[in-house]
């Protein structure tokens, strides 16, 4: 194709959706760009020290965290997702949704609870004491303990994506395979599992991103990771430049994860035209003993991921109830709830705009670029916060100088906070939206357009009703994540406003971890309701 043709084509295809997409991307990219521009200032003077003394530690710890979390998730979660989908056993219906509930427990709260539970005087030590052993303590304040704690607080991401696949795709294939004379077990390992790989890996990538981003739990356990390193060099060493270098390295790690995911997705583009779901009638029923074994196996992640931390928090809450629980506490919960609600709406809206504008734009490269918008998720919350503060302060100051405003309009208000949340959680909303949009056969919006409706009319009349379920789950996931978010909130939250997460963190960092139990419980309880709701949705729409 000649150069002139390429140019003409570009001019023809660069429509308003193209520039709208680019505009949205720019809004999202501002903090990242800010950080990369700052990268040119060079690393701080301690960079040599960090790269020499600490970097190996960060890398090995992050590596082991990733390995253990992957191992744990694959071992427990995929098997569990399959068991609740394929087999019938007592309590199955309840366990099905309870497996999603650990999503409601943030990593740092999980860390507080487990450290307490396994510490002197905790639940385990009491049981052991009763057996006659004194002063028992299981030390989990290390990288293995951290992997465990993060795994159980995050495994539900994989559970959700894998189970959705199992529910909708697996039964036909499985039955076909059984007809070909393959045993249930072989069918699972040779057919279902390889097919489920994209779903599993999609969930796993989310888990690993969260693991690499964790600050609260690693900080509490004293494990050096990239994120604690970023905080340390930013704040203790007072070298934002060095922190930015570490962030850039972390970004490289995350980018490689994303590339791996893309690559394996391209390699395996499975989709099954017919979707059918497993119903009670085609669930397998094992002998009593078999059912018991399954029940035990499925119960295990629920107990570890929810019952135990809940127990520990309740024990603490009962001791600190009178000190923490007062009128102000209701107001606090209400604020937390409200912020999460507003954030979820804006994030879903933004993700929708990005998804559809990029679709309506006809330029292939811009369509691809739109996917970059979700990378905000890979940037640690505190770094996003600073990346947003620098440019928005610039605008705020400019507006005051020009007399447009008399005080900061963006900083210290909900605008900067919600903006930062949107950047950070866009991926959380984008992915369920994208996958539910993918489920709508392209010929459906196409036929609407051929029938004379424009992009917007097609969206509101056809796509919107069809991806409602995806929108709702996107909303809920963002809602929960906002409720749990900590470092970004600490830096950008407005006056008068506090959140449950910040309150819990304040107590814990103030060595009053028992007091943190009540705000933690409130986070969990507030998040549990939408989580259950999410499960209902998953069951209805697959």
């Amino acid at each position: 194709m000649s150069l002139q043709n390429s140019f003409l084509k570009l001019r023809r295809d660069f429509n308003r959706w193209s520039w709208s997409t680019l505009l949205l991307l720019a809004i999202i990219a501002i903090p990242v760009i800010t950080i990369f521009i700052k990268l040119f200032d060079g690393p701080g003077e301690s960079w040599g020290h960090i790269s020499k003394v600490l970097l190996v530690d960060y890398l090995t710890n992050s590596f082991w965290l990733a390995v253990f979390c992957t191992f744990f998730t694959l071992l427990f979660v995929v098997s569990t997702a399959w068991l609740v989908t394929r087999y019938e056993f007592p309590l199955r219906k309840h366990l099905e949704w309870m497996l999603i509930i650990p999503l409601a427990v943030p990593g740092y709260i999980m860390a507080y609870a487990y450290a307490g539970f396994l510490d002197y005087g905790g639940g385990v030590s009491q049981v052991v004491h009763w057996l006659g052993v004194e002063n028992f303590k299981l030390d989990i304040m290390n990288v293995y303990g951290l992997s465990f704690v993060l795994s159980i607080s995050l495994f539900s991401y994989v559970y959700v994506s894998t189970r959705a696949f199992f529910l909708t795709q697996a039964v036909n294939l499985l039955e076909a395979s059984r007809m070909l004379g393959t045993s249930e077990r072989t069918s699972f390992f040779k057919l279902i599992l390889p097919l489920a790989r994209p779903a599993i890996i999609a969930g796993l990538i989310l888990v690993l991103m969260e693991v690499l981003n964790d600050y609260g739990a690693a900080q509490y356990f004293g494990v050096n990771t990239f994120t604690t390193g970023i905080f340390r060099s930013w704040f203790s060493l007072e070298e934002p430049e060095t922190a930015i270098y570490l962030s850039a390295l972390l970004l490289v790690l995350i980018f490689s994860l994303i590339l791996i995911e893309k690559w394996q997705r391209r390699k395996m583009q499975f989709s099954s035209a017919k979707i059918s779901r497993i119903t009670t009638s085609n669930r397998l029923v094992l002998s009593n003993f078999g059912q018991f074994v399954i029940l035990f196996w499925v119960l295990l992640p629920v107990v570890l991921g929810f019952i135990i931390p809940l127990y520990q928090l309740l024990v603490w809450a009962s001791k600190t109830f009178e000190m923490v629980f007062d009128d102000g506490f209701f107001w606090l919960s209400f604020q937390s709830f409200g912020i999460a609600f507003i954030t979820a709406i804006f994030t879903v809206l933004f993700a929708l705009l990005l998804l559809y504008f990029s679709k309506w734009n006809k330029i292939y490269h811009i369509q691809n670029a739109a996917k970059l918008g979700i990378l905000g998720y890979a940037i640690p919350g505190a770094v996003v916060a600073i990346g947003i503060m620098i440019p928005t302060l610039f605008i705020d100051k400019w507006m005051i100088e020009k007399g447009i405003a008399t005080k900061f309009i963006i900083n210290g208000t909900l605008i900067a906070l919600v903006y930062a949340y949107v950047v950070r959680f866009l991926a959380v909303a984008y992915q369920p939206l994208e996958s539910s949009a993918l489920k709508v056969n392209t010929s459906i919006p196409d036929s609407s357009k051929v029938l004379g409706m424009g992009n917007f009319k097609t969206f509101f009349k056809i796509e919107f009703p069809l991806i409602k379920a995806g929108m709702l789950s996107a909303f809920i996931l963002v809602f929960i994540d906002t409720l749990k978010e900590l470092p970004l909130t600490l830096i950008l939250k407005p006056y008068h406003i506090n959140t449950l997460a910040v309150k819990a963190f304040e107590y814990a960092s103030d060595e009053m971890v028992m007091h943190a139990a009540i705000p933690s419980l409130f986070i969990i309880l507030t998040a549990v309701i939408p989580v259950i709701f999410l499960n209902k949705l998953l069951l209805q729409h697959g």
Partner: protein
Amino acid sequence: MDKILEIKSLSKSFDGGKKFAVNDVDFHINRGDICAVVGESGSGKTTLIRLIAGLEHPDNGTITINGKEVSSIKKVVVPEKRNIGMVFQEYALFPHLNVLDNILYGISKKKDKKKIAAEVLELVGLKDYHERYPHELSGGQQQRVALARALAPNPSLLILDEPFSNLDAMLRMQLRNEVFNIIKKMGVTAIFVTHDTQDALAVADEILIFQNGHLIQKDQASELYNKPQSIYVASLFGNTVQLNKGLKNAFRCPLKEDCCHAIRNEKISINASDCEYVTTAKILKRTFLGTHTQLMLELENGEHLTVVTPEAVLGNEISVGFNSKDVLAFDD
């Protein structure tokens, strides 16, 4: 005649120009004609109709509908402004709307909306199905709703993408005739894509053969059958035997050896001594196919040949032959 669709040097590539889906295609369709686009999957036929519908933007060339240029390197008219009807392979009925709402969806006229919808539904024989939802309909019924929906806005061009591929054989024949009777009755110009030549032969006024993004032949059905321009086209319309050197020798044909020739299976006669070229053969295997019998033959010089014959063949030794007028000759 009045050209309803005119396509000039149309090209479209994917993956950044690496793979051509449609490569330098020229043709036109006259008003009222039904035109079939035949090709294997991946031959570019679906891309072609998506280009016509405006769902894809061309890399090169132009598309003119009703005398108005709708796609070119400079400008692409959006699908919704093209007045085209389209029936998709998967029907693409809106799952959350009932049959009536599906039909009403594309009718832009404020007046008589309901009347038009009722008319088209009656036309496709589904007048009692207004309130049903797509998932409550059979495949054939969904197909008819899709057709009705595409016809309701009175399009100047109707496109059907593999309209019968999801149906079983019986239903397919019946529905095919029904659908094209309706189309003819309405006088709509239609272009339909299929990988099945039988569909094309049965209903199309003109057939376009696509291979690897190229339009390799465009003709009426009988012309395509009698004068295929390549062995590929010939083989699309029934089993064809390529006459290689060995076969030419076996039949003692005086055909040039370096030229490409073929003969249709049904033109090979059994026990026919009156043919121009005859040879004797031994039957290696018989396969009974109901109305026909398939014979695997070994010719005098040891060449193998498979033929299908409606006759019952007795004995193990037979003669086979054909006439020179039935030999197809190609350039390549």
